């Protein structure tokens, strides 16, 4: 059991998907129950990963490997380290909650809907566990098709436009990334005389800087579109606005992380010279900062509630990429944690808007106002989600943003200054949104009799809120889990980093780790 635990986590949704196909489409209730069961089981099964994970080991755990396509050197090789562990837990939990929150929202083509979600779930977990580039690429592409259908079939009025835009953008990025992968693969053959897609083997490559730069840019296109970094973000607002609630939740919470995960897992360790190249670091940092500020400014302009949350993702993910390219332990660990935080808080925010959309079928901010009087429970939940996204101390968002800012400050004071401005803007647009929708008098008569949260709806939020508060109050276990893998990556990219004397080494420990919440 233990040696196949990861496979079981990976293939549980796929097995659920195959069985779901056998259920006749008319049995809507049965299909819903089954999909929820599979989602819940998927989450439960992934829990032992946490309890059996040994955070004192650097390197991968729960590894499984066997030959898949020997003639091209592709292996079925999976395994996780701390970074992927956190992302997998996020995936299994949010995946389950997304399935749960669709119970009433989706009444049309129910079977196909849940089938797509379960398939998507396997694809996403697969991306985070693959240690073989070929396998990774297969999962990476596998995610596109179900997401296309989720947006394109169950989405809003401009769903088809949004769905194909999402598909085309991501596909264009990923095929260019494929060229980068193939270049590494070919170079490995040149240097070692064997074909392999194993990440561990490809790390042995010693490539000249200019080649690394080319490969870096090809990876960059693939990952940056997924994240999405400015200026590749234009697919995101469309996809988010048109997607059904659960689709937006998954898209924001998990799918976007595939891009940042790609940078951390592949770009940095495989292309260390290019990753510290000043031009590249500058470009990435500037794009991240533009993303942070621009995303926030657009949020301030938005009339559409859901679009506002969508653009806030651009801003928040800018922090994550900035943290990565600060290239120090604080930056990277903060970035990973912030990815989890963003998954929690933005996931909640999309569910929040989904709930009023189900009741009112409009996303115009101006249509709402004073909802706190009508839906008090709802207002509390929204407040927590909003504050966690805005980075209020004691909630999760603060820990991540603070650590990233530390990392950014260490790398460049200018970056940190801009990023802090982004934090302030973030608080501004979120608070203003809350004020316009929740506070004051009920201005719109149609909002007077909206029902408050049902038990099921409340249940969807509770795990995420609990998780958010946990991270906010006591983030140490998370930094412990991240310490080894992050250290490994930093050592790989900047071999001299940890040799900078004891003073330097002390500064490298994530701050939150030393003293809990600051």
């Amino acid at each position, binding site marked *: 059991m233990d040696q196949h635990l990861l496979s079981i986590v990976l293939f549980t949704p796929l097995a659920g998907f195959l069985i779901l196909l056998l259920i006749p489409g008319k049995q809507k209730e049965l299909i819903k129950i089954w999909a929820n069961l599979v989602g819940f089981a998927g989450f439960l099964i992934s829990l032992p990963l946490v309890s059996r994970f040994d955070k004192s080991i650097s390197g991968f755990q729960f590894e499984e490997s066997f030959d*898949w*396509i*020997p*003639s*091209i050197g592709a292996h079925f090789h999976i395994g996780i380290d701390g970074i992927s562990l956190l992302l997998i837990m996020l995936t299994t939990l949010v995946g389950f909650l997304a399935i749960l929150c669709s119970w009433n929202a989706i009444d049309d083509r129910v079977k*196909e809907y849940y089938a797509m979600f379960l398939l998507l779930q396997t694809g996403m977990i697969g991306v985070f566990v693959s240690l073989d580039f070929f396998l990774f*690429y*297969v999962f990476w*592409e*596998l995610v*596109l*098709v179900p997401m*296309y*259908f989720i947006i*394109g*079939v169950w989405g809003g009025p401009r769903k*088809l436009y949004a769905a*194909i835009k999402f*598909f*085309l953008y991501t*596909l*264009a990025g990923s*095929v*260019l990334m*494929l*060229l980068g992968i*193939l*270049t590494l*693969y*070919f170079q490995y053959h040149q240097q070692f005389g064997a074909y392999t897609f194993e990440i561990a083997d490809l790390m042995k490559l010693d490539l000249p800087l200019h080649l690394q730069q080319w490969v870096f840019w090809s990876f960059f296109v693939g990952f940056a579109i997924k994240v999405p970094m400015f200026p590749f973000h234009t697919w995101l607002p469309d996809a988010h606005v048109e997607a059904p609630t659960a689709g937006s939740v998954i898209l924001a919470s998990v799918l976007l992380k595939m891009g940042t995960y790609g940078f951390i897992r592949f770009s940095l360790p495989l292309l260390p010279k290019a990753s510290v190249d000043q031009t590249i670091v500058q470009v990435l940092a500037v794009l991240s900062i533009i993303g942070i500020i621009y995303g926030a400014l657009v949020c301030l302009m938005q009339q559409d509630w859901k679009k506002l949350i969508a653009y806030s993702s651009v801003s928040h993910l800018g922090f994550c990429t900035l943290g990565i390219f600060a290239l120090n332990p604080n930056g990277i660990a903060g970035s990973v944690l912030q990815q989890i935080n963003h998954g929690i808080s933005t996931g909640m925010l999309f569910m929040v808007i989904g709930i009023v959309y189900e009741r009112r079928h409009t996303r115009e901010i101006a249509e709402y106002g004073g909802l706190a009087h009508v839906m008090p429970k709802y207002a509390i939940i929204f407040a927590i989600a909003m504050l966690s996204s805005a980075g209020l101390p004691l909630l999760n968002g603060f820990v991540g943003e603070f650590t990233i800012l530390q990392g950014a400050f260490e790398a460049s004071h200018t970056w940190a200054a801009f990023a802090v401005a982004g934090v302030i803007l973030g608080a501004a647009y979120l608070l203003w949104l809350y004020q316009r929708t929740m506070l004051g008098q009920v201005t719109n008569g149609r909002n007077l009799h909206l029902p408050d949260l049902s038990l099921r709806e409340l249940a969807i939020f509770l795990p995420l809120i609990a998780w958010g508060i946990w991270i906010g109050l006591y983030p140490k276990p998370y930094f412990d889990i991240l310490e080894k893998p992050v250290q490994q990556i930093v050592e790989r990219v900047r071999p001299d980093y940890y040799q900078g004397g004891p003073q330097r080494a002390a500064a490298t420990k994530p701050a939150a780790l030393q003293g809990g919440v600051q």
Partner: protein
Amino acid sequence: MSQFYTSTDHFVLLPAIILALFGCAILIFDVFWFQNPKDRKWLALLVITGLAFTGAALVRQQLHLTTENLTQLTGFGGALTIDRFAIYFNWVFTLATLIVAIVSYHYLEIEGEHHGEYYALLLFAQCGMFFLAAGTDLVTLFIGLELMALCFYVMVGFLRGDKRSNEAAIKYLLLGAFSSGFLVYGFSIMYGLAGSTNLVAVEAAVKAHAGEPLVYLALATTAVGLLFKISAAPFHMWAPDAYEGAPTTITAYLSVASKAASFAFLLRIFGPSGPLAPARDSWEPLLAVVAVLTMTIGNLAAISQTNVKRLLAYSSISHAGYMLLGLIAGNDTGIQGIAVYVLVYAFMNLGAFVVVIALRRKNIIGEDLDDMAGLMYKSPGYAVLMLIFMLSLAGIPPTAGFLGKYYIFLSLIETHHYLLAVIATLYVAVAIYYYFRVVKIMFVGELTEKAALSTSFGLRVALGITGVLTLAIGVYPEPILRLAQNSLLR
């Protein structure tokens, strides 16, 4: 050449003999025993039997090569060569003919043109393809090409009562004859240089005369003729019309088998040990331009098509562009890529056409994109299979189509054709747009017309084979890759 017809000659020629004999048998049986059109479906069984024997002959040849540890076996004084390359391609032809034959009987009945000679023509065409894959002599190759093409001219115009079919046949015939003229012109110059029609002799002559204007002339005219056959731009104009007008079964056959055969032919002439290989420096840039143009025209024109057959025609043009890239790279990976591509393309494209065939019902032409609207809610199985074929044609893993593209991209990178690689990959994103127009209308479109699809036992079997293989090869491609690796031209 002491003896006119040795037992080796016979052994080498065996698949072609079987195909020709069964073709003739079908013609005779048709006249004497199958007067009633209803009975003619048994002729399809005869085709299957013939293909089974052909397959057995191929297996025997393969075993002979393995046990004797030979790389090739030549017959007729070097005019025919059986090597793993030829056997591999012949398997592709055999599979394509098989699938086309089993979907044809029902389709032809609906079209009201069920005649015995159709099946005979299928086998004769495959006989021509055999010579294209196995021929190592200019004359043999040319005769093979004409045999195949003549059969296709007739089959494209097989719907005698249909204007489009007639128009398609005339167009195809005129342009086809024209391009054959170019080809023969090129061949005659090569013969003039070498004093022999044998490919080995021609190669030596081309090498000896390197840089002379005559070589360029031969190169240019041969290239024009061949590019026409694989429907590469700017010689692709016949394809959309021929594809649209031809009976859909023949469109499928034309796009798969004829294309595979033409690529085998192309590789015999331009491939690593072909007669024009020494002049690679002069034709490589030329073909690179042609390949980019082909992908551009194929992909861009496909976007605006409303007829599924035309859409698939343009998609087939763009696929020819991808396969050409393998030849431009020209290393082992590239050639292997073409071999893999041809095979997976056969399955996915035949599958897609089989779905279109199922849409043709009595009084419903079923070729328009709109005819597919809401297919998911009428026949979910067909819709899902079509989705798999479309994904595969676009080259999305884990479907078979990805492997073809994978090898082509890899070969381009190995030979440092980075720009071509970038262009080729970006066109994948363009292609997904029009393939997903089909998907979109099947899954999101409103169901307008409720008539059930026309289906038959053969059609379901064909769909099953192509669908399962398209997925299975994508998930576990090892056996196919081994096969293709062994089929390399040396």
